[in-house]
């Protein structure tokens, strides 16, 4: 007996989940970008990078959790398509790299301090990784018609 994904029974489920997905990653990526901009000397310059990161830590983690769980549900509506979609695969690799970088090198740079030039490099790598996740996500829909 085939079990239908309940998310596929309503045409509204996918777009509503997408709104949660976008709100979640915008919060997580945007708040991280504020820390990155501070490492570049832009934005909240009166606060230290660690002060900003600590203030937003739980909010941005909450955003990431919402984005990941809504993302899993979006994935569940058409797993074969996503699995075969090269943009999706690139997105997952970038996401894994971005999260790993965030909780290792980025975290050390923000909380333990680092030379300003190294801080700028860390900030640029962090922003590039997160933006590449966004590009990977947008291009899922672009490369989709190429699939058999």
């Amino acid at each position, binding site marked *: 007996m085939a079990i239908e994904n309940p998310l596929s029974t309503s045409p509204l489920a996918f*777009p509503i989940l*997408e*709104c949660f997905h*976008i*709100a979640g*990653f*915008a*919060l997580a*990526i*945007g*708040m991280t*970008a*504020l820390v990155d*901009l501070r490492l570049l000397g*832009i*934005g*909240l*310059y*009166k*606060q230290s990078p660690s*002060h900003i990161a600590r*203030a*937003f830590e739980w*909010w941005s983690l909450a955003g990431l959790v919402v984005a990941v769980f809504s993302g899993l549900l979006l994935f569940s509506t058409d797993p074969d398509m996503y699995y075969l979609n090269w943009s999706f695969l690139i997105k997952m690799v970038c996401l894994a790299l971005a999260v790993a970088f965030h909780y290792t090198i980025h975290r050390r740079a923000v909380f333990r301090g680092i030379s300003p030039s190294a801080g700028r490099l860390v900030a640029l790598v962090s922003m590039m990784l*997160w*933006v590449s996740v*966004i*590009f990977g*996500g*947008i*291009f899922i*829909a*672009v490369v989709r018609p190429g699939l058999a």
Partner: protein
Amino acid sequence: MLITTLIWLENLPPFTSLRSSAYAYPIVLALHVSAISLFGAMIVVTDLRLLGWSFQDCSISDLIHQLRRPKWFGLIATATFGFLLFACKAEEYYYNSFFRVKILLFLLIAMHAVAFRRGVYSDPAKLDHSLKSPPHAKLAGSLSLLLWVAVLCAGRGIGYVPGRAGMHYH
């Protein structure tokens, strides 16, 4: 009159090529979404602070003053990429209900900015005197959150309206 202008706009050379390019359009879309992340986070950070839910050890005025320029930059970047997306399908967007709702929400956001300008945004130092965030600051923060989340949902909705036949694309 309006629709003639929109047809003229969407058939200008940069927008016809953006419309027909397989990769330029999604690249602009991805840049729009990236700018939304930055701009949106700055809005949420301000709203959370006005509500007294986060960043309590930074004064409201300190936060608003420091974010003023980055926020303008974020808004201009988001709006520029958004305008490019609109301009290459201007006629179709005109008929799109979600786009119309989004424009209406922008008007409400402009009214919100005007309504809370004196009480909150133009002179936030006033808000620093009391230990707790005053009620009108909390109202400004919660309305702003609601309006921008609605903008996000309306924006996502635009892409779900099927394309119309009979558009005057050259």
